[in-house]
């Protein structure tokens, strides 16, 4: 048994002071829980990223940056992407270079690392693009070397690599070979990204001069690749001039390349533009920078060989690999949108704000894989760009579920996700459905504060008599807290923050239940959700029938009940039985079963609950037996385009039974035992139809989750209360409470509370 709290309070002039704390608990815990515009922005301010994927920050991770933290992969915050679960898996990246080592290199023995098309070796005209130079193997390692706890790993270690050998072992080639290599990559048909860590030195200032510099044969193939929707990444060149070399600069002047072509400058180990790197210059609108100096990657000298190389050749594959990660993550984005995202997410503060050097800035994979703008839910359409698509900020979407089914709801949705979209091109992200659900908890009533609130005696109300009846009013700090007007014959009762439950007006025993928040709740109508403040009640009664009404201050909750009882009065020898049958309806605006939802989960109008209630009270001299049972049938008023719907009614129940003995060994003492079950769903389901995937045609697929709302257990509260009136101004209460299966969950631990409460008025 865990001692949880010990409290005993004394009241002086209505002020409570703790005297002794005797509250203990066994177990404890459990339950509860819980349109965007498109494309580029005109003003950006992207700060340097924080490399936060700690689980992925291994020695192998830092190796690519020459084992220096803050360089290489950590400089671009690649671990953030890995932590989100993206590695470039499933994305095909082509590499036009000197080939790939055919040795059993440990970094390429994973699946998909050495893919060859027929005729991949354009130099030797064979199928195996064997690297005898080393450059291509190094570039390939930067993009996708295995993550295997040895050596280093590439930025997109899950990507599939396709190698095309267009340079011989001396590093030279011809335009024909290059053109054939690009065509071979196009013919593959499945490549998303093509890395070009090569170029022709020289500057161009127009499409024609670029084409002349590149060579018309090669230029035509570069255009053809772009028109085949392949993202091409070019190294800017190492001549330390103001603009990229011919191939990389061509995008500045040829609209056919724009959108799917990038130029990449290199920064040194200090993060500043490398002393060799060409600057973004005239290609600034299609250019960014990435680490390129002293990059540690795979080499051709053996199965475990690596080399430190520098150059824009090393910066470009970091960008290509990053694009592979984006391609895997954002299934809703076209290749052009992926390129735009990579550019717009680049760090552009500080030195990187100089667009003539860095273009869009420094590659920032952490930012690129994070939501840009706000996340929103989609409804009203299955296409992201449709005019009928409706977007609601995710922050305004929530579901606050009643404890009557919160346990079942959470369990049903465990591991289930919905897709949401950021406000930058509506890139898709996954969100756990349970993260949007807040569970109300019955157990919260049993925290130390509330436990005493349930036990403490009410402040003695001021009573006003009038020719029409009696008004009781309670003030706290001069403010009217509650009042209750009843006519002399109890025909009419009107309450403000005080219910008009005539059933509890026992004439003899003055039930403990009627004198504490504790039991009183058990005998109130559970479908009149009088949580919080500012609730209004009205009852009209004759001896055998009546009606109750309920309304909260903003009229969102309305209730109406007819009731009938046998009207038996207490006899002189202390016997009476009182049976009350009631039925009615409660209406909840934009909520149901006291569960409110908003945003994409919203309901609208009034959801109705039809209920039946039966209460029984039998007095046998000093013993008073009480019981009540309520059952309800709830119909959700669905909102068009809401994710939430419920075509079938939800059935609920609640019950209470107990006995109170007056004159317990002494006329000043009472003892009561009450067992109760809070409101619980007995049968019911809701449907959640949520977006779960999207494709590059911007079409969205929805999945409907059928959620069984019946909890896996039944919460039972057992209360034992002893009350002693020491004097008229002084009384003592002792309470013992046991809660089993809190919030109707088998996973909740049992809870026990012991408390003592002493009150004295002066």
């Amino acid at each position, binding site marked *: 048994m865990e001692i949880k709290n010990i409290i005993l309070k004394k009241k002086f002039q209505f002020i409570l002071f703790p005297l002794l704390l005797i509250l203990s608990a066994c177990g404890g815990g459990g339950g509860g829980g819980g349109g965007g515009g498109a494309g580029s922005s005109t003003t950006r301010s992207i700060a340097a990223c924080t490399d936060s994927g700690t689980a992925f920050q291994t020695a192998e991770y830092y190796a690519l940056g020459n084992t220096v933290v803050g360089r290489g992969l950590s400089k671009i915050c690649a671990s953030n992407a890995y932590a989100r679960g993206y590695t470039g898996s499933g994305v095909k990246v082509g590499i036009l270079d000197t080939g790939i080592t055919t040795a059993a290199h440990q970094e390429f023995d994973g699946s998909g690392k050495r893919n060859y098309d027929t005729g991949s070796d354009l130099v030797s005209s064979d199928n195996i693009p064997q690297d005898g130079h080393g450059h291509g193997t190094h570039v390939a390692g930067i993009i996708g070397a295995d993550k295997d706890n040895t050596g280093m790993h590439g930025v997109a270690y899950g990507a599939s690599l396709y190698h095309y050998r267009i*340079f011989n072992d001396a*590093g*030279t080639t011809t335009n024909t070979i290059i053109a054939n290599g690009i065509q071979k990559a196009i013919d593959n048909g499945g490549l998303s990204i093509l890395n070009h*860590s*090569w*170029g022709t030195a020289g500057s161009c200032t127009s499409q024609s001069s670029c084409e002349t510099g590149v060579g018309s044969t090669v230029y035509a193939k570069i255009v053809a690749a772009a028109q085949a929707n392949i993202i091409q990444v070019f190294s800017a060149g*190492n001549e330390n001039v103001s603009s990229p070399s011919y191939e990389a600069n061509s995008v500045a002047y040829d609209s056919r390349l724009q959108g799917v072509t990038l130029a990449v400058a290199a920064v040194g180990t200090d993060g500043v533009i490398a002393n060799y790197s060409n600057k973004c210059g005239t290609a600034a609108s299609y250019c960014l920078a990435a680490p390129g100096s002293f990059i540690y990657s795979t080499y051709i000298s053996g199965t475990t*060989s690596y080399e*430190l190389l520098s*150059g824009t050749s090393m910066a470009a594959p970091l960008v290509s690999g990053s694009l592979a990660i984006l391609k895997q993550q954002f299934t809703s984005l076209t290749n052009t949108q992926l390129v735009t995202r990579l550019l717009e997410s680049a760090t552009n503060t500080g030195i990187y704000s100089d667009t003539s050097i860095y273009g869009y800035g420094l590659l920032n994979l952490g930012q690129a894989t994070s939501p840009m703008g706000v996340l929103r839910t989609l409804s009203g359409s299955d296409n992201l760009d449709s005019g009928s698509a409706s977007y609601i900020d995710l922050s305004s979407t929530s579901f606050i579920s009643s404890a009557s089914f919160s346990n079942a709801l959470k369990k049903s949705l465990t591991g289930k996700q919905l897709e949401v979209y950021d406000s930058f091109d509506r890139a898709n992200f996954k969100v756990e459905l349970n993260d949007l659900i807040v569970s109300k908890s019955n157990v919260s009533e049993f925290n130390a504060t509330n436990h005493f609130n349930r036990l403490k005696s009410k402040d003695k109300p001021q009573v006003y008599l009038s020719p029409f009846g009696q008004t009781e009013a309670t003030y706290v700090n001069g403010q009217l807290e509650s009042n209750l007007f009843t006519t002399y014959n109890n025909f009419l009762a009107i309450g403000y923050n005080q219910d008009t439950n005539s059933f509890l007006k026992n004439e003899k025993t003055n039930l403990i239940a009627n004198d504490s928040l504790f039991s009183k709740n058990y005998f109130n109508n559970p479908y009149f959700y009088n949580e919080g403040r500012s609730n209004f009640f009205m009852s009209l009664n004759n001896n055998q029938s009546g009606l109750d009404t309920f309304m909260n201050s903003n009229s969102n909750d309305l209730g109406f009940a007819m009731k009938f009882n046998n009207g038996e009065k207490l006899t002189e020898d202390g016997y009476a039985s009182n049976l009350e049958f009631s039925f009615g309806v409660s209406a909840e605006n934009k909520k149901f079963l006291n569960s409110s939802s908003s945003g994409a989960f919203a309901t609208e109008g009034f959801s109705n609950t039809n209920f039946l209630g039966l209460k029984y009270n039998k007095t046998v001299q000093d013993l008073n037996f009480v019981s009540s049972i309520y059952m309800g049938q709830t119909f959700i008023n669905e909102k068009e385009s809401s994710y939430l719907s419920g075509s079938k009614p939800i059935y609920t129940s609640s019950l209470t039974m107990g006995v109170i003995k007056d004159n317990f060994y002494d006329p000043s003492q009472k003892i009561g035992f009450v067992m109760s079950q809070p409101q619980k769903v007995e049968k019911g389901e809701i449907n959640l139809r949520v977006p779960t995937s999207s494709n590059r045609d911007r079409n969205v697929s929805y999945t409907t989750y059928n959620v069984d709302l019946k909890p896996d257990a039944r919460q039972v509260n057992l209360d034992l209360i002893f009350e002693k009136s020491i004097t008229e101004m002084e009384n003592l209460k002792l309470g013992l409470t046991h809660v089993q299966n809190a919030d109707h969950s088998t996973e909740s631990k049992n809870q026990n509370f012991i408390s003592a409460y002493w009150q004295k008025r002066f």
Partner: protein
Amino acid sequence: MLNKYYIFSIIFFLYSCTPQSNETIKVINIFCKTSGQNIIENNKNFINKSDANFFKSYEKINGKKFSNSNFIVQSDEKRRGGYSLNLNKIVGNKIYFFETSPQEKTATSTVINYPYCEIELNIITNNLEVIIER
């Protein structure tokens, strides 16, 4: 005659004991490639085994081809691929290399590199001279 023979023997002996620098320099093994790192620092273009920093340079060669290298020649930093060093000729104590450059307006890799040759010579002398012709 005896004296002449004696004098000839002395002269022959003395000749045989002259420094080896007069021996013909021969290349036993040579392998030329490019390195991503600056193998020989301090702006030198060669280093031999008698230099205290030789092994430091030697260790920088990725993919050493033979274990008896005693001479390394390196060209200056290149900003793109397509360069290579080749042994041209040896004349006396002068070793001539020819540096091949990529043609203008041709595509090359965009990597910083240093063409080098890893060499095993038959002798190591301190008066060797390396000339890289372009």
